[in-house]
Every structure is written in C-alpha cells, then in structure tokens.
C-alpha cells in the first residue's frame, strides 16, 4: 500500500497520542507520559518503536508490548510495527512527564 509521508496520521506526535491509550496498570499512567517510549520512527507504512520498562522483570511487559503493536496497527495506514525493548539508558522517575510525577507522589523530582 502506498503511504503519503506527510499523512498527519503518521506524524510521530499523532502516533504518540495513540500510544497514550496504553497504560501501565500498576501506576495508572500511560506509557508515553511515563517515559517508556524512547524512540518512534516511521518508515513508509512501518513504525519502529524503542521502548523500555520501569524495571527488568516487569510482569506487564508482554501485555504492554502487545498493546503498543495493536494500538499502532489500528492507525490507518500503518501496516507493520517493530517494537525493540531496550535497557540503555535504564528508566528512572525523572523520565516521567512533570504533570504525572505528582500522581505517584514525586512532586520534587527534577528532570
């Protein structure tokens, strides 16, 4: 399928908004504002995502990876999603969006 590189649906900001539907249920915060998405790139109809988790051994890993794939595949005209799980740099609370830090009791956390 031909894709238009200027298609607003494929703009990284729009795709990140889509990923805000996917939450970490333990914290009740979406994975974008939590700072778990390290990189998102679009190549034609393929989206490449580099993401991490708050901790190694996070029991929600499979669910969240699956959620990222499903959420992005629902966006027209995305046809392929590649999720790469990375641990470098390790996630830390300063990667959270400032507006959600307070929700987990981290008002003084600086980015």
């Amino acid at each position, binding site marked *: 399928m031909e894709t238009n590189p200027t298609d607003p649906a494929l703009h990284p900001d729009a795709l990140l908004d889509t990923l805000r*539907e*996917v*939450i970490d*249920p*333990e*914290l*009740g915060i979406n994975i974008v504002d939590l700072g778990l998405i390290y990189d998102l790139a679009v190549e034609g109809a393929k989206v490449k995502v580099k993401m991490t988790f*708050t*901790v*190694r*051994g*996070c*029991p*929600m*890993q*499979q*669910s*969240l*990876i*699956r*959620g*990222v*794939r*499903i*959420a*992005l*595949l*629902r966006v027209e005209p995305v*046809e*392929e*999603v*590649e*999720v*790469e*799980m*990375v*641990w470098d740099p390790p996630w*830390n*609370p*300063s990667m959270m969006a400032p507006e959600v830090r307070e929700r*987990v*009791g*981290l008002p003084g*956390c600086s980015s």
Partner: protein
Amino acid sequence: MSSTSLAGGLPDAQRAPSPWLPLRFILLGIASLLTSVVLVVVRPDLLATYHYNQYIIAVSHLFILGFLLSVIMGAMYQMAPVVLEVTLHSERLGAWHFAGHLAAVVGLVWSFWSWQMLAAIASGALLTVGVVLFVYNLARTLRKRRHWDLASATFAAVLGWLMLTVLAGLYLAASKVWVFSPFNPIAAMHAHAHLGALGAFIILLVGVSYRLLPMFLLVELPSPRRAAFSLIALNVATLVLFVTLLLDSPWKLAGALLAVAGLTAYGLELIALLRAPGRRALDGGLRQFYAALSLLAPTAALGLVLTWPGLPATLLTTQLETVYGFLALAGVLTLAIVGMLYKILPFLVWLHAYGPHVGLRRLPALNDLYSQTLQTAGLWSYLAALGIVAVAAALGHEPGVRIGSSLWALSLALFALNVGRILSHALYPRNPSPN
C-alpha cells in the same frame, strides 16, 4: 504485519503460568483464612488457654497450611518464573499438586480436630507428596536460571526449609502413633513451627520484598550487601533455632540473636528504601505491607525474651508463647500477605479481563479494581484487632479474645468484599472512569 524484537529473550509475562494456577491456591488460602478466624470467634479458648491441644493444632494447620502455605505456593507459581526470568517447568504438575494439597489440608484439619492420628499421617503423607511435586517443579524451574542472585538463592533456601518442615511434621505425627522419638514433643513442635515460620515463610517474605519493593517504589535496592547479610543470618538462625529448640538447649538464645540480627539488617534496608530519593508514594497495599513488617520488631523482641535460658514455664510465659505465634502468623505474615494480595489478585484478574484489550481501548488501573476506602478501613480494624487479641490472649481472657477476633473477622470481611469486587472484573470487565 507486525514484529517485536526482544533484547532480553522471552517477555516476562509470557513466562508466567496461566492465572488460574496461582488463583486456585490463593482462593483456597482466603477461604481457609476466613474459616480459621470464624473458628477463633466461636472458640476463643483456642487462644486464651495453653496452645498444646488438638483443636489449636487443627486450626493452626488450617491457618498455616490452608491459608499461608496455599497463598505462598500460588504466589510462587506466579512469581518465580517472572522473578527468575524463566518459564515454569510444568503447569500440569502444578494442577496435580493443587488437587493433592486441597485433599491433604481438609484431611489434616479434620484428623487433628478429631485426633485421628493415623488419618493425620495419611493426610500428612499426601501433603508431603504435594510439596515434593511443588519443590521438584520449582527446582527444575530454578535450574533454568543462568546466573544466581538474591532472588534465586532465596527461592532455593525456601524450598529446602519447606521440604524439611513437612518431613519434620510427618515425623511429629508418626511419633504420636508409634513411640520412637527421643525428643520432648513440645520442644519438637516448637522446632517444627520455627522451621516453617522462619525458614520458609519469613525468609521468603524478606527475599521477595528485596525484589518487589524496589520494583513497586521505582528505586534501586539501597544496599545489596546488607540484604545478602540479612538473608544469610536468617538462614543460619533457622538452622541454629531448629537444632537448639529440638534439643531444648540454652543455645536457642544464640539462634534468636542471629534472627534478630538478620531482621535488624532487613529493617534498616526497608527504612533505606523509604528514604530513597525519588521513590514513589506508598499505595494502600504497600502501606499494609510496611505495617506488617513493622510488627517484626515486637514479635522478634518477644521471641528473644521467650528463648531466654531458664525462663520459667508459668501461665503468663506459656500464654506469651501463644501471643508470639499469633503476632508472627496473624500479624506479620497475614498482614503482609493481605497487603501483597492487593497487588497480586488485581494483577491476575487484570491480565485475564483486560490483557486482551490493551491497545484497543483505555483500561482501568489495578487500584480501580477495588475500593481503597474498604482497604484502609480493613487495615486499621486489623491492627486494632491484633492489639486486642494479643493483650487478651496474654491475659488468658476469653471474652477479650472473642471481641478482638470478631473485629479481626470484620476486617477480613472487608478484605473479602474487595476480593469479590476484584474477581467480579473477571466476569464483567468494565470501562475505566474518566480521569
């Protein structure tokens, strides 16, 4: 088409068994807990009089095997593969284990209550077969682990102590039928109880909290060396206490001091975790867990007093032994487990009810699955009940035990209501409230 590349190999949740394996153990545990507490309300003499009689042995086995061991085994089936980053050796073996475990618990409680010791031995043998299946399954799971750390060492030690505890219990039951044991039966019972409570339960609690608390609080473990010291001290203390209690030796004080040293290091680590910069605020489950762990201090202090060489066996000291067991089992372990169940149960149900919908729609968070008001009321009423029962048991005051255990039952009824709410999501998944 979509693809997923995974740097660390198999994703962790894929390593976990089906939620129904841990869930059936956990539900049996909750049913046993509620039944035990109702029995104490009906029979307050169980805690208000000396603890060596058939009824308290029956109820304590319902509590320890039916509740504590069932929940811990269910949680280990769930957590071990995730924590150790390997797959469970066999889910089918786990299902067979559950069937045997259920029959053994029912059989043991009935046979102790009616003091049918041959039936107790048969049920104990069935329980042992179940524990062997469990230990084999987990040991094969552990063997898949490529490197050893605190978590795997803890699991290995707990499996060993658990096996020894069950064998010691079988020996005790057999010694009631055939006269062959050279040991004082009460000393042997205390040694058996410490092997299970300290070796299997407390060490598991300590080891698992080193893994789970940093994960929940979003910080690193402050001092892995201190954590390792606490686990080594507790393991050595278990061995020393078992031998010295069995032989009724004055050296049991050394075992108690070692346990206190291990628990002190653990307490320092817990405080350091609370002071870690950038940690997340405690939620209801973690507050309950910390409340439980703070009860380790009075429990360990009382244990130290009771191991003092030459302490006379008076009405007060024997009742204090009951209070010590009550604080350890109903205080530290139960409160900690109920706190952790507020994490584990919503997680298991969420995975079943909402896991397939991730990425398709906005979903509730884990703490949306239950009432936090009920949880807070449950914690405060539980702490009040513990205080009342402990004081009344120390004084041998039956009406006081009944009042305290009624409050305890009320607190657990609030917990059961929340469990019902959580489970209802498995049947009727809901949309989240807008935030």
